[in-house]
């Protein structure tokens, strides 16, 4: 729970879910690149595809399709949008 919102870690997302980034761990320098790609606080996205072997995942974000690895997005908390 962050500010009264139900949140989950990025890696718990499933195909077809919609999410909104609630917070990004400021102490994880690796997350800077993902933020620069548009995965910033408040960004909404759709989990489009999960690769056949379970990772990486492809999300539709800010009008483009971005693939990233779940375990490299640890530290990004998202709220699932119904």
């Amino acid at each position, binding site marked *: 729970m962050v500010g009264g919102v139900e949140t989950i870690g990025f890696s718990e997302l499933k195909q077809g879910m919609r999410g909104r980034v609630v917070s990004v761990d*400021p102490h994880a*320098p*690796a*997350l*800077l*690149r*993902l*933020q*620069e*790609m*548009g995965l*910033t*606080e*408040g*960004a909404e996205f759709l989990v489009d*595809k999960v*690769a*056949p*072997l*379970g*990772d*990486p995942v*492809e999300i*539709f974000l*800010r*009008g*483009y*399709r*971005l*693939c*990233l*690895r779940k375990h*490299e*997005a640890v530290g990004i908390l998202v709220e699932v949008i119904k």
Partner: protein
Amino acid sequence: MIATDTRLVALVGNPNAGKTSLFNALTGASQRVGNYPGVTVEKVTGHVRFEGKEFDVIDVPGLYSLQPQSADEEVAAGVVHGEPGLSQKPDLLVCVLDATNLERNLFFFSQLAEAGHPIVVALTMTDLLAKHGTPIDQARLSRLLGVDVIPVVAHKGTGIKELERAILDNLEHPMVPAFDVGLKPELDAQVDAIAERLARDAFDVERSTIRDSLSGESTELDERLAPFPELSEALEEARSSLASVPDKGCTDPASRYNWAARIRRQVLPDASLKRIRTSDRIDALLINRFTGMIVFAAVMFVVFQSIYTLAGPLMDGIGAGFEWLGDLIRPWLSGVPVLESLVIDGLLTGVGSVLTFLPQIIILFLFIAILEGTGYLARAAFLMDRLLGWCGLNGRAFIPLLSSFACAVPGIMAARVMPDPKSRLATILVSPLMSCSARLPVYILLIGAFIQPRYGALWAGVALFGMHLVGLAVAIPVVALLNRGVLKGRRLPFVLELPPYQWPKWRDVFLTVFSRAKVFVQTAGTIIVVLSLVIWFLGYFPRSEGDEERYRGEYTTLTSATRKHIEEENYIRQRQIENSFLGRIGKAIEPAFLPAGFDWRLSTTILMAFPAREVVVSSLGIIFSLGGEVDEANTDLRTAIQDARWPDGRPLMNGWTAVGFMVFFALCCQCMATLAAVKRETNSWKWPVFMFTYMTGLAYLAAVAIHQVGLLLSG
């Protein structure tokens, strides 16, 4: 034309924004490929003449951010800022913005603008937007950004003239974006407050000056306000209140994206249309668990087969062409044997071996350019990432690694598909471990001589397959160790975008293939020819007038049984090699190879194969006095190796030594073209030397280990 007089225009933007397509449309065939000093990044420049004026253009590697996170990005950012030592400072930046991916592209623009560079925007992919029904308000975008915005479609030539005119105008009257970043609300509010406070005392100060002062980047304002304690105090107060706000600078990505989204909404309100339906439908098949994997396997099979089989006849053709050329020249030189051998065995062989790599390079890059241009390469990387990710590489590595099974040279060049320098270097360093087609003859010869006669065809097949896995199996721990120890730099998270599917743009495909081939011939080619001459020298000298007569005399003293097996010319050739520097070194290092069970004949063969392992079978032919024209299916050569003895009468090779010899060839770095390609691609001698050392060391240790185990087991 003096270089420093020519104005320099830099094309900058996100990866895949369309910079290279635009660069090709602007510069056509006037492109030059070089390297920035000391780094692996390529420097691609060209020249434009338009309406009597001219300027240089530089295609800067794609950047997601001006805040570099890897060595390659540091170089690209350095070029943008005009850091000395990299290139001339650009007089103008053409910021290439992908209209279908506006928010992320504007994120980068905001950083460029903030750095205060003069900018012209080239808006790409507007044809895709038009096709999918969303117009973009380009006049408004130009107003909001405060710079010229020129829509271009590079492959159709649309907007190129307009862009060239805008570039010339802006070179005369540069426009720095009138751009109040105003990114962080807290900072903005404080800037407003201070501006108001100063205005009350009739101070007219620019907002950017206030912002710089508050974020601690300049003390200009502090100095001006020093005589007025009340104002200084207000400034100090504002600064300390900001100190409690995290990330008070303007670098916070979230604020930048808020700004970018605001701009995007004003010029392109309906972004949802940007989902391109056809792409989604194709992807339902191509990145699907079942059909996706089948298509992937089929595509890779076609790529690999084409390099493996299509290149073969072309390479043979080039080889035959050079032989013909040699025969043509030979009569002119036959008076001077040294010159004849230098030109034909040294120079022509060297140049010929450079050119024989071209068919494979051209075919592979043709496929890469097409796969990249259609958008499939990104999908394939998505499918394969998990498989390659666990050993520290990523999904894109399958292209270089797979092509290395045909030949490591195009494979190493293909490693440029890797997004970050660290994984690119790791891929380059293990590519030559993949079992290339030049190793096959050794396997066939030795398996035919030692495995098949004893264990049958089934085990021969298993052994052949196994030999192809040796390098792959060794590569996995090597990558893990390299990543842990040798390769410096933080690993960036893997990011990959899936662009919409498109038809490849043939001019761009052609230019990619042409420039790769040219770069290989010019840089790696030179190294290969020089090394060929060195090797020729070692194999030819020392040689004196009377040698040949002496060897002929020796030949007549051989028993007639031996003479029936060995022709006179082949005997002389064998004695000449034995007497050359190469043969002498081979004999001198024999003791080092004794633990592996190799005598001087095998160690000299190994030496002879260092320039190119292709020659190993013909080297064995020469060493075993059968002449250099034998091939791996030659039964005489097979028998000669089976029957070879140590001076004390023990057989030279048994099954174990044969496997040891094959594993040695599987792991050893015996290919100067590979080393030349690594030198070219990494722009340093450090990595080829490192590669040579680790591979040769591993090969030696493995051969020794196998022989010693063989000795133990066979008692």
